[in-house]
């Protein structure tokens, strides 16, 4: 499904990603774990084309997408939940969802399924996104990424910056989406959530992927988590 092969990404002269490779198969949930600033978000931005890699290739469904523009990449069937939620604050929730279609046609069955999953989003359709709470905005961002019925969803820190009381609900929705057959690449600091939903976990540090493990392996080897995140279970 997604094959990231030896990419190097820069912000201007700063070399952020070094030889990053990983893959996500069909229906697979892959997580990138690591401390702040190790390059997780840059990896996501490299995939969607916002910060294209300077070397290396990214393939989606066997075709090279690195070097293409973000709209071209997204319109191949990739949904994107940006860090900080990326609302269009002056647009209504409904129009925010419409933006998530890109150039795809609206499918009423898909929209129905999204509203079943996010009833609070449906309640707020006519409200401006900028007036929603952080948790509601996160739901809109996730619902928006699903509008095009994507084959792959990129989720950048879905629980970041939320009130602690909201995290279980957003985590539950993330789990629910993961279980409904989408391929997912998720960047997340909430270790419990990651270990709960991921099929495989890549551990990042200093712009590199150092290890790959299954959640079960990580649960047994708390030292690895300590090393990469500074936290235990």
């Amino acid at each position: 499904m997604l094959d990231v092969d030896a990419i190097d990404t820069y912000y201007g002269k700063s070399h952020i990603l070094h030889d990053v490779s990983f893959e996500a198969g069909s229906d697979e949930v892959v997580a990138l774990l690591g401390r702040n600033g190790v390059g997780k978000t840059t990896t996501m931005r490299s995939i969607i084309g916002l910060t294209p890699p300077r070397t290396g290739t990214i393939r989606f469904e066997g075709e090279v997408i690195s070097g293409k523009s973000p709209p071209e990449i997204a319109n191949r069937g990739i949904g994107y939940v940006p860090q900080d939620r990326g609302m269009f604050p002056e647009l209504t929730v409904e129009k925010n969802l419409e933006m998530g279609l890109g150039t795809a046609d609206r499918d009423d069955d898909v929209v129905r399924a999204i509203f079943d999953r996010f009833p609070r989003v449906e309640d707020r359709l006519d409200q401006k996104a900028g007036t929603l709470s952080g948790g509601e905005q996160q739901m809109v961002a996730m619902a928006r990424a699903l509008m095009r019925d994507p084959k792959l969803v990129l989720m950048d820190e879905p629980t970041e910056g939320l009130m602690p009381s909201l995290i279980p609900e957003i985590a539950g929705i993330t789990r629910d989406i993961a279980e409904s057959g989408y391929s997912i690449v998720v960047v997340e600091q909430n270790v419990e959530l990651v270990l709960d939903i991921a099929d495989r976990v890549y551990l990042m540090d200093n712009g590199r992927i150092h290890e790959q493990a299954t959640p079960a392996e990580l649960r047994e080897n708390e030292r690895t988590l300590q090393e990469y995140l500074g936290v235990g279970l």
Partner: protein
Amino acid sequence: MALASDVAVAVLNGVTWGLIVALIALGLNLIFGLLEIVNMAHGSLYMLGAVIGWFVIDATGSFFVALFLAPLAVGMIGVAIERGVLRPIEDDVSITLIATFGLLLIFQQLALMSFGPGTRSVAAPISGTVSFAGVSYSTYRLSVAVVAVALMAGLYLFLFRTRYGTWMRGVRQNREVASALGVPTSKVYAFTFGLGSLLAALAGVLLAPIVSVHHLMGLDVLAVAFIVVIVGGLGSLRGVLVASLTYALVENVGALFVTPVRARILTLTLMIAFVLVRPGGIFEGDAV
């Protein structure tokens, strides 16, 4: 009684002129809002609309063909400007300012070469006057006002009811996320510049029978359009409409009592004073 009817005519003139200014300024505001480009060439696109319209009328004898063709041509010129000139330098505000000023000079000189230095008039496609309550007023001017209102209503519906309109508003608010969600942002930019240009040219053709057509006619309008955009509030469409109407009404009614030059001075003084008190414009923080 004579004064009352003079005032009524001045108010009607003010409304018509205000609506036309609003059409021009809306295009300018759309372009600034989305592309963050201060388009110095905007007035010359209005002038091009009138000049191309004059040529089309000269060739076909039909005002309505001109009203269709000239804005379309200028709209395409706008798309070409965005793609060919502005796209490569989009990240540098000062260079876009110089580039659009250069375009202003180029269009002016092209018009001078082809159209000549003189002023020419265009016959109104609708003649006669309508009378009500003891005031008679040009049917054509009234029609221009109606058409301008219809165009603005159309623009509003386009921005708020169509997918492309949603894209334009969304890209303005968060261009990076819009592109990452699959919105073809570069097409949206070119389209917006084309639409703004088309609106300016439409105003040019509509006004051609009212003012005389000449190659410098865009300069005056450019200054006015900038002022109403600033007074209305950058990015605010209703602000532009309110500011345009206020500007044109004060100036037209003022000209009944003082010379037109003094009326213009008065209007500009009021608007500058307003901006000093409220720098964000009438509808500060309003976004399309």
